[in-house]
């Protein structure tokens, strides 16, 4: 393969993995915008989505489509239950308390998955065919197209939901000013619940579509959460366009780094980017500096 072909190949790989990071970042944004909480258990939703899909389609042998929607539904319910059980009972919690409780939840999800499915790594057949497509000398798996398509659908859904439904608008109102939102009759607590459910659903979707390419085991959540958070911060916490864009940037950097520098240090790239952004410009690429300072953290 020539260098150009190689570059193109890394680019495709980077975009694929970057899409997933972007979707994890979207999950962070949704909860952060409406509650100011960074949900450190976000990566576990991705893991649970992938694992549930594997269980439903390869062990119970449900059809792909039913398994897909059922997995999302189940993880969405888990997200909602988590909010009710652990976030809802806290009265005016401090930031440290919130961090500890979401970390604890992430441990519990991870432990629960290990309990249910063991430490094995699971495979999932791709959604359609394994015959790679040849584009400009680089190969691209059909699953990559599925990943891009489903991310497009997710983003379209979010735009429609936040822009045109009364519930979505109410959630945005909470993000701007919670007190004012509750004064005009929005039930803020319900919106918090919804944001956890929605965020879990998006995480699960990401987990389901990546599993045919990247496999899945109980232990993947933490790293996905950290990388998703790096992406969210690089894009500007709360900015959804920023999240998608930063996802591609970090995905491509990672795949180039793994290809040309060292695959062993691949996982460190997103972390180093995270530290640099936090140290130099915590508001990220597209976040407004004013808003970053305005928020409590």
């Amino acid at each position, binding site marked *: 393969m020539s260098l150009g072909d190689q570059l193109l190949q890394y680019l495709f790989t980077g975009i694929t993995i970057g899409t997933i990071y972007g979707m994890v970042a979207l999950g962070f944004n949704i909860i952060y915008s409406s509650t100011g909480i960074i949900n450190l258990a976000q990566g576990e939703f991705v893991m649970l989505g992938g694992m549930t899909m594997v269980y439903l389609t390869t062990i119970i042998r449900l059809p792909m489509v039913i398994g897909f929607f059922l997995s999302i539904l189940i993880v969405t319910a888990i997200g909602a239950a988590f909010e009710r059980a652990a976030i809802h009972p806290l009265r005016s919690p401090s*930031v*440290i308390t919130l961090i500890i409780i979401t970390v604890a939840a992430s441990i519990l999800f991870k*432990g629960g998955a290990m309990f249910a499915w063991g430490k094995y790594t699971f495979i999932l057949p791709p959604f359609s065919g394994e015959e790679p497509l040849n584009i400009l000398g680089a190969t691209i798996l059909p699953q990559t197209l599925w990943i891009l398509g489903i991310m497009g659908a997710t983003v379209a859904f979010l735009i429609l939901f936040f822009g045109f439904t009364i519930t979505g608008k109410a959630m945005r109102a909470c993000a701007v000013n919670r007190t004012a939102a509750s004064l005009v009759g929005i039930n803020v607590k319900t919106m918090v619940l919804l944001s956890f459910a929605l965020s879990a659903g998006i995480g699960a979707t990401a987990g389901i579509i990546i599993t045919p390419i990247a496999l899945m085991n109980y232990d993947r959540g933490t790293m996905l959460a*950290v990388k998703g958070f790096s992406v969210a911060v690089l894009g500007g916490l709360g900015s959804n366009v920023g999240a998608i864009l930063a996802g591609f940037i970090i995905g491509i950097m990672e795949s180039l780094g793994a290809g040309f520098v060292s695959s062993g240090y691949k996982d*460190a790239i997103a972390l180093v980017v*995270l530290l640099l952004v936090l140290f130099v410009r915590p508001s990220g690429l597209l976040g407004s500096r004013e808003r970053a300072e305005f928020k409590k953290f």
Partner: protein
Amino acid sequence: MGKRNMFSLLSLAAVMLALPLGLGNSYYLNVLVFVGIYSLITIGLSLFMGYAGQISLGQAAFFGLGAYTSGVLSAKFGVSPWLALPAAIFVTAGIAFLIGAPALKLKGHYLAMATLAFGHIVYIVFNQASFFTGGPSGFGQIPRFRLGNFVLRSDIHYYYFVWGLVIAALLISLNIIHSRVGRALRSIHEGELAANIMGVNTAKYKIQIFVLSAVYASVAGSLYAHFITFLNPTPFGFHFSIVLVTMVVVGGMASVWGALTGAALLTLLSEYLRVFHDYDILIYGSILVLIVIFLPQGLFPAILGLLKKTKS
């Protein structure tokens, strides 16, 4: 540092001095050595979390840096452990300062994620820099501490060595807490802006206490390396950072005595949880959730409160 703390410290010293006499079994001594090592880390972490109101999700990295610096210097370069220990302190403190200076400008979630990212990076380096660290499979033959011809080999000797250092760390910490610095730290916790306006240089105090907590963790790391005499990256990952935070939170963040309680409880607990193998993580998670929801002050203040109630 107050008469009461002095009294508590002396009582602790007396108890720890006498404890081995009551324990014929060297298994418990071994466990107590680990309680001591972990206590050193949690005492530092509680100063940083409980008093200064900050958070670190990467404290295991400093423990690892101490252990690896000490281990590599003594096993591969023939440096005496007595010199490797201060060298490790020097290296770890330097790294803590470099990472802390920019990181401590961040607050809350941002600081948590920055320390978490730092911890992961260090862990990746332990795994990848295999020329020094032996990679994932680690390296052994780390020499023990020795005094002349006498090698600190047995559990009982190491027990006294470790707990002597724990008492020293407590003494230093209590002195800090009851000094001008301690008051400044608490003022950061209550309200950093207000503290700044009153003329407290909060940035300086935060970095000082962060570096101090890293130094405690580094000493604990050296003690670990020269006791186990074998190192691999597993004990220094994210999981252990969380265990450390759990220890501090369970014991009670707002007191170094809480840090000691938490380290002791969770280390003993993990011995009993051995039967569950990896599922112990489920129990840690549950404990953390329950404590945060029902006893946000931690166990130590709760027990103290209960004692007061029964007295009156």
